[in-house]
């Protein structure tokens, strides 16, 4: 940093001399007192001497010490050698020694007395002596003394000066041929900032300097600094460094005239005032710059999303063709009719922006995608196939073709004439308003035909009503159509994107079901002659594409990818599962594992069950060819379900254990209750038997949930279908070993079940007097024991059933005497009309 230090009284910067160390950073470069009109240079030579003395006292440093030694010795030879070595090492280029000895000579001849005076023990720096010599000798430099830098220890610039020598050699030398030697080190001395050692930093000279012999100092400086511009901001204190960034307010040709001026003034004029960093770039970028996200700091090409000039999802500003081409890398023509060349698909199909979608939708789908031979009835799959084959040229796999069926389903953009095959569309509104564009044909194929019909009716009526008034008014409204067609389409696209679905039955269940029901209703109402209404419902469907993410791994590399981005994140932790082998934990684990196993089984069975239950619906929906396949699948499913309850692979009996296991879980009970109606009779009865047999255990497990009662209905159905022997068996099972009945009676379900069985038996007996129920005494005995139990069990432990069948009374009346009957009646609160 240059400071103007003057001994003049009117210089206000004197105080800065002392505070120079800390204030170096704060120098006000534009302060007039420093550099401007207020800066007065005086006899810089005296000033320089003074400062040199000061510097000496401050501290010399290594270079200074060495130099000092040299100076003290005033051994020309030694000095010569050292300097020359120093210089040659730093300069490394030019033959210095030739010139230096002469310098040395002259300096040493001139300076020693001064040396001794001024610097006592230390300074005797060759550099300083040189500098002084030059400063004294060269009148041209006189004016620039102000730019000396007292703060900088001159001695310590020894090395820098040597560096400077080297540095300035390239620029200076060509000129110096005509300039007397003494200017050399002045040049060196003059910019007393810490240029980095080594000439390499100084680039090639900025240009051949003008060959005028008396190149002014300023001009040289100018060139010099131009040349050293690449050095840049080495030291923040130096104005020269900061000047590097400045554009010179160049008045170079007229510099010579300024020599009379304050040298600083001229310097400023030469190098110019600082101005803002060049912002020429910003003007054109300003449009998008507000929208541009900050540039990615590390954005490897692998997997990074393309850097968009405008964020995804911005409404279109310019005509679509521009924006699409620039932004989405799709070189497709926007013209609705033009064919599409799909080159490089965007790497991130999942995030299809409205613009992209538009692109996709507009291009192949604006002409009718279906060949003329295709009838109006198409299954979803067929449509998807057709559409995807249409856009096979689209280089990308996955999402684009699946998207297109959806895209085919919605085509809201009709700028041009309607597509050639309009049989796809619903009936056209016959009388569009006169000033409308040709009536828009909507693609309603994704809708249910019924829906479509209703819509067109509505549209027609609306169109008829409004055509006269609306159209006129709209044409007179000067503010209409502020929202361009593109923008409308864009909004619509976004809305449609939200409707894409991979599984319409899942996402849009009620819509699908509603129209199904309507269809069925219509079929029922209509006579069978009208067959054309058996069209199927078609919804836009996006195929489910499995995107399993596999992190990129380079074979043979040690460790993980260092490159990761938003789309290919790095797997940070290798989680390895280790099993613990502690014994207690083993046991616990076994229990847990078993439970998990049960849950897993239940889940699998459930999904099978759901598929079986949904089979009918799907069956109705499927076209003829697929029906057999579906049927087959259904059979397989059912079989699988049944098999899952089996004990072993080869044993067809229902596994008790399995049943109990499943029933021990709440979900399992639910499963069984839903499953029972689907199973074949022997199996379902076996299950019911199993339930009855294991009722105590089940009841115990059910204490919390009370879910067993869900089973009542399906079980009752099963019971009603049982034969008499089976029924007896069931009752026997229920009673089981001693004491089981007690537990059974304590449980609500148990009681209900018991009643059901008894009631069924009674029904059997009363309906068919020849039934086999009475053939062996088992039934009677069982009923006896039941009644005994019922009477003996305290009322409190008797749980109330879900419902009490009416014929229990008649049942009991067969077997017990009147007294007991009454007791039973009271206990169980069964009356002739109880429910």
């Amino acid at each position, binding site marked *: 940093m240059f400071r103007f230090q003057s001994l003049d009284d009117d210089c206000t910067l004197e105080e800065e001399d002392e505070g120079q160390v800390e204030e170096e950073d704060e120098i006000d470069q534009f302060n007039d007192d420093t550099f401007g009109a207020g800066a007065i240079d005086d006899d810089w030579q005296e000033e320089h001497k003074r400062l040199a003395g000061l510097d000496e006292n401050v501290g010399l440093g290594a270079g200074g010490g060495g130099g000092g030694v040299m100076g003290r010795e005033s051994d020309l030879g030694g000095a010569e050698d050292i300097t020359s070595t120093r210089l040659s090492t730093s300069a490394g280029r030019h033959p210095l020694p030739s010139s230096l000895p002469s310098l040395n000579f002259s300096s040493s001849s001139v300076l020693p007395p001064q040396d001794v005076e001024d610097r006592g023990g230390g300074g005797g720096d060759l550099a300083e002596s040189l500098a002084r010599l030059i400063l004294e000798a060269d009148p041209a430099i006189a004016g620039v003394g102000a730019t000396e830098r007292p703060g900088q220890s001159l001695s310590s610039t020894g090395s820098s000066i040597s560096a400077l020598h080297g540095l300035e050699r390239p620029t200076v030398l060509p000129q110096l041929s005509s300039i007397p030697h003494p200017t050399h080190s002045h040049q060196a001395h003059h910019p007393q900032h810490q240029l980095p050692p080594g000439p390499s930093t100084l680039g090639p000279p900025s240009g051949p300097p003008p060959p005028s012999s008396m190149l002014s100092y300023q001009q040289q400086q100018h060139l010099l600094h131009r040349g050293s511009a690449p050095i840049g901001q080495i030291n923040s204190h130096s104005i020269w460094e900061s000047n590097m960034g400045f554009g010179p307010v160049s008045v170079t040709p007229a510099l010579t005239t300024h020599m009379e001026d304050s040298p600083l003034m001229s310097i400023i004029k030469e190098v110019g005032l600082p101005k803002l960093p060049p912002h020429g770039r910003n003007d054109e970028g300003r449009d998008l710059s507000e929208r541009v996200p900050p540039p990615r700091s590390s954005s490897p090409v692998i997997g990074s999303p393309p850097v968009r000039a405008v964020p995804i999802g911005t*409404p279109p500003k310019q005509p679509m063709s521009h924006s699409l081409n620039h932004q989405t890398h799709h070189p497709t023509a926007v013209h609705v009719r033009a064919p599409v060349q799909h080159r490089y698909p965007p790497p991130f199909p999942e995030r299809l922006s409205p613009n992209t979608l538009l692109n996709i939708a507009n291009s192949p789908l604006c002409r009718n995608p279906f060949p003329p031979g295709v009838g109006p009835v198409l299954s979803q799959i067929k449509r998807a196939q057709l559409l995807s084959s249409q856009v096979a040229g689209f280089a990308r796999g996955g999402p684009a073709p699946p998207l297109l069926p959806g895209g085919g389903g*919605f085509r*809201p953009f009709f700028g041009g004439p309607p597509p050639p095959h309009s049989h796809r569309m619903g009936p056209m509104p016959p009388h569009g308003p006169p000033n*409308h564009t040709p009536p*828009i044909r*909507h693609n*309603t194929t*994704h*809708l249910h035909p019924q*829906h*479509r019909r209703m*819509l067109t009716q509505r*549209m027609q009526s609306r169109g008829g009503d409004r055509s006269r*008034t609306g159209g006129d*008014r*709209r044409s007179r*409204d000067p*503010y*209409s*159509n*502020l*929202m361009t067609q593109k*923008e*409308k*389409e864009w*909004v*619509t696209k*976004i*809305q*449609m994107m939200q*409707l894409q679905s991979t599984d319409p039955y899942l996402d849009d269940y009620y819509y699908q079901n509603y129209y199904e029901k309507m269809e069925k209703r219509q079929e029922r109402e209509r006579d069978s002659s009208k067959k054309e209404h058996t069209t199927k419902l078609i919804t836009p469907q996006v195929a489910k594409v499995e995107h399993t993410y596999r992190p990129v791994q380079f074979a043979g590399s040690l460790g993980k990818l260092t490159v990761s981005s938003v789309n290919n994140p790095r797997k940070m932790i290798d989680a390895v599962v280790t099993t613990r082998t502690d014994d207690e934990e083993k046991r616990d684990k076994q229990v847990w594992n078993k439970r998990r196993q049960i849950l897993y089984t239940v889940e699998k069975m459930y999904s099978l069950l759901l598929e079986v239950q949904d089979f009918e619906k799907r069956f109705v929906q499927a076209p003829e060819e697929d029906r057999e396949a579906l049927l087959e699948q259904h059979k397989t499913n059912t079989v699988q379900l049944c098999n899952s309850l089996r004990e072993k692979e080869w044993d067809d009996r229902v596994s008790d254990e399995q049943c109990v296991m499943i029933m021990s879980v709440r979900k399992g009970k639910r499963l069984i209750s839903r499953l029972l109606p689907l199973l074949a009779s022997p199996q379902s009865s076996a299950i019911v038997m199993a339930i009855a047999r294991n009722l105590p255990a089940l009841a115990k497990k059910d204490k919390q949930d009370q879910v067993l009662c869900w089973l009542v209905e399906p079980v009752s159905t099963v019971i009603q279908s049982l034969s008499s022997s089976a029924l007896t068996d069931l009752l026997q099972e229920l009673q089981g070993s001693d004491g089981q009945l007690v537990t059974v009676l304590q449980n609500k379900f148990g009681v209900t079940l018991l009643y059901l069985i008894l009631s069924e038996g009674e029904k059997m007996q009363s309906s068919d007097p020849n039934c086999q129920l009475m053939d062996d005494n088992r039934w009677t005995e069982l009923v006896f024991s039941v009644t005994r139990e019922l009477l003996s069990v305290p009322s409190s432990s008797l749980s109330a059933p879900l419902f009490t069948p009416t014929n229990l009374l008649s049942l009991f009346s067969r077997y017990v005497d009147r007294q007991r009957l009454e007791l039973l009646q009271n206990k169980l609160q069964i009356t002739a009309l109880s429910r």
Partner: protein
Amino acid sequence: MNYVPGTASLIDDIDKKHLVLLRDGRTLIGFLRSIDQFANLVFHQTVERIHVGKKFGDIPRGIFIVRGENVVLLGEIDVDKPCDTVLQQVSIEEILEEQRLQQQAKQETEKVKMQVLKDRGLSIPKADNLDEY
């Protein structure tokens, strides 16, 4: 002229006169010029209509941009339909005055109610705070 038949969209409502009720209770009438996917609305030649009793007043407001989440209802106004309301239009100053009086009266009753409740140790939080929970 629905772009996507079978769905509900505001596209058809563009450039038509609409009445919108906002969450803060204001009623705006204007020409719907632009929409976006959040149902943010741009109204042109908007008029805020204040109703007090049987009187109403229109305050011209210019251009409004309404954030979608603040819309309670939005309906098209049929300009052809004869307007045979019992409402009587008054000047802006008058309606504002009426509104002020109405608010004042409401505040009075509210204050009294709160006091009465407080005396009984009850408190009912105000509805406008609830909305923002």
